[in-house]
């Protein structure tokens, strides 16, 4: 179990290797990688800046990770979220869930993302080619997805 908030990029293959190295109790590893898309609402994005609430972010991500481990038998998990200024195609977030079986790994990874999206204190600001900034709006569908786990 680990959470990291960092400006640097991450290497998915290396992160998986670090989690699973020398372990033979893992049978299924699911990763989710979120990347910056080049357009938003049909307008080109020049950069995306990610702000967070230092101190709370790590606490909240750890709470989400603990919740996932309480729900599914996970051998390992990892959440990495980047902050700072990113460009189209850049990695934003990596979530990894490892379990003996695939259903637990799939569900836990989706759960981690649904709650990261709705609970972890990050905010995205898009800047277009003219330098106009716009805070990204929260999506109703993200709230719906997270709420579905609590039914």
């Amino acid at each position, binding site marked *: 179990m680990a959470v990291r908030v960092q400006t640097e990029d991450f290497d998915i293959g290396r992160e998986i290797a670090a989690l699973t190295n020398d372990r033979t109790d893992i049978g299924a590893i699911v990763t989710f990688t979120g990347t910056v898309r080049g357009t938003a609402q049909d307008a080109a994005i020049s950069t995306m800046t990610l702000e967070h609430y230092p101190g*709370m972010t790590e606490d*909240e991500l750890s709470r989400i990770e603990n919740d996932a481990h309480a729900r599914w038998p996970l051998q390992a998990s990892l959440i990495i979220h980047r902050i700072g200024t990113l460009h189209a195609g850049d990695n*934003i977030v990596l979530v990894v869930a490892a379990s003996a079986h695939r259903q637990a790994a799939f569900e836990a990874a989706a759960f981690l993302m649904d709650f990261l999206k*709705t609970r972890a204190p990050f905010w*995205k600001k898009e800047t277009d080619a003219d330098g106009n900034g716009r*805070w990204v*709006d929260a999506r109703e569908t993200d709230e719906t997805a997270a709420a579905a786990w609590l039914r």
Partner: protein
Amino acid sequence: MTVKLVYLAWVRERIGVAEELRDIPVNVTTVAQLMAWLADQGPGYAQAFAEPTVIRTAIDRAHVAPDALIADAREIAFFPPVTGG
């Protein structure tokens, strides 16, 4: 009561301050009351808290609802709905 207030994303931009120490009147006891009181502290505050139902709040770095009591809080943060991931 003196509390550290933290403003994030467009809440910070509208107020023009990232964090501040504030003396809160004793009759302000809930998060919702604190937002109403802050909305009266100047034009930036008025703009930031114009739609208080949109604003999310954390007390001591944990999410709370608008009816949460602010007694014993050391740090209260106000921010828009989160958009990470």
